[in-house]
């Protein structure tokens, strides 16, 4: 497909075979992921619009939950990937992790924006306002700002700048560790948003099973979509880095 070096697996041992499996899956991602993501997203939209029952109090508009909550989960997953890859940038000094961190941050920012937009459109009829300085809304907006700032800082230097990659990795780590403090401070400050209703013990479930099943299907769909988007975006970043490297080599060759 491309001339980009792929992560190769170590030989021997459980870890080695696991690595080989991951490498194999990675080679297939161009053929396997798009149709799987397509099917899962179709299931998600059919589930949200057709299968799920109409909510008694909020009416049809409650169906926004099936894209709003998965978007939030996708954003958290993407930011988790940014955190892990930033640690790896500092530890392994491998620029491939930097490419994945940048790709995941872009995808996370996209889903945070989608979460904020669908949340505002859901809040307007139900709460009577698009926006309120509520705890969860504030911390989501701050997540958006933090990772947009990360991307801005990273984009000021080119892809090959290791120093910039290290700085941005440090920023991403600080930002990720700041999130719990932000959430604690804004929760003490004020709260309006309903508490999480998805991750409850079976006996303490507030959502009916039919809604929950549709929601879980949506989450699986969006997690697959997030994986695909991160892979695609990281690939783009890596090829972009190669273009920059080639240009530098060419400049040297023609300059001599």
């Amino acid at each position: 497909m491309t001339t980009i070096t792929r992560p190769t697996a170590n030989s021997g041992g459980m870890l080695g075979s696991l690595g080989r499996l991951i490498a194999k899956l990675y080679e297939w991602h161009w053929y396997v992921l798009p149709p799987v993501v397509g099917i899962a997203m179709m299931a998600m939209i059919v589930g949200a619009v057709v299968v799920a029952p109409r909510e008694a109090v909020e009416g049809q508009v409650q169906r926004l939950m099936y894209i709003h909550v998965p978007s939030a989960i996708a954003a958290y997953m993407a930011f988790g990937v940014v955190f892990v890859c930033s640690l790896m940038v500092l530890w392994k000094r491998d620029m491939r992790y930097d490419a994945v961190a940048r790709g995941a941050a872009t995808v996370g920012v996209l889903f945070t924006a989608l979460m904020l937009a669908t949340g505002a459109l859901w809040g307007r009829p139900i709460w009577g306002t698009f926006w309120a300085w509520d705890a969860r809304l504030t911390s989501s907006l701050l997540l958006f700002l933090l990772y947009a700032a990360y991307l801005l800082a990273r984009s000021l230097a080119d892809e090959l700048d290791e120093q910039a990659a290290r700085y941005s990795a440090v920023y991403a780590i600080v930002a990720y560790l700041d999130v719990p403090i932000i959430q604690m401070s804004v929760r003490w400050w004020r709260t309006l948003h309903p508490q999480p209703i998805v991750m409850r013990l079976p006996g303490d479930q507030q959502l009916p099973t039919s809604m929950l099943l549709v929601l879980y299907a949506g989450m699986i769909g969006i997690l697959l979509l997030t994986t695909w988007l991160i892979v695609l975006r990281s690939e783009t970043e890596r090829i972009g880095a190669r273009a920059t490297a080639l240009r530098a080599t060419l400049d040297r060759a023609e300059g001599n």
Partner: protein
Amino acid sequence: MDYLGYLFAGFAVFWAGLFAYLLWLQARLRQVKRQVELLEERLAASEDNTAAPRATAGRS
């Protein structure tokens, strides 16, 4: 009490955002791939011209 307008707007924003991002990403991927090809060609040509013994091959 159904607010179908808001429901429709929410889904529209979500899908439009996703598809816009995907299309932009595809375009960008194609663009960087073409750049890499062009640069590799130019690099090969410049190596032929100088015919220097030094290996200046790009990092792979």
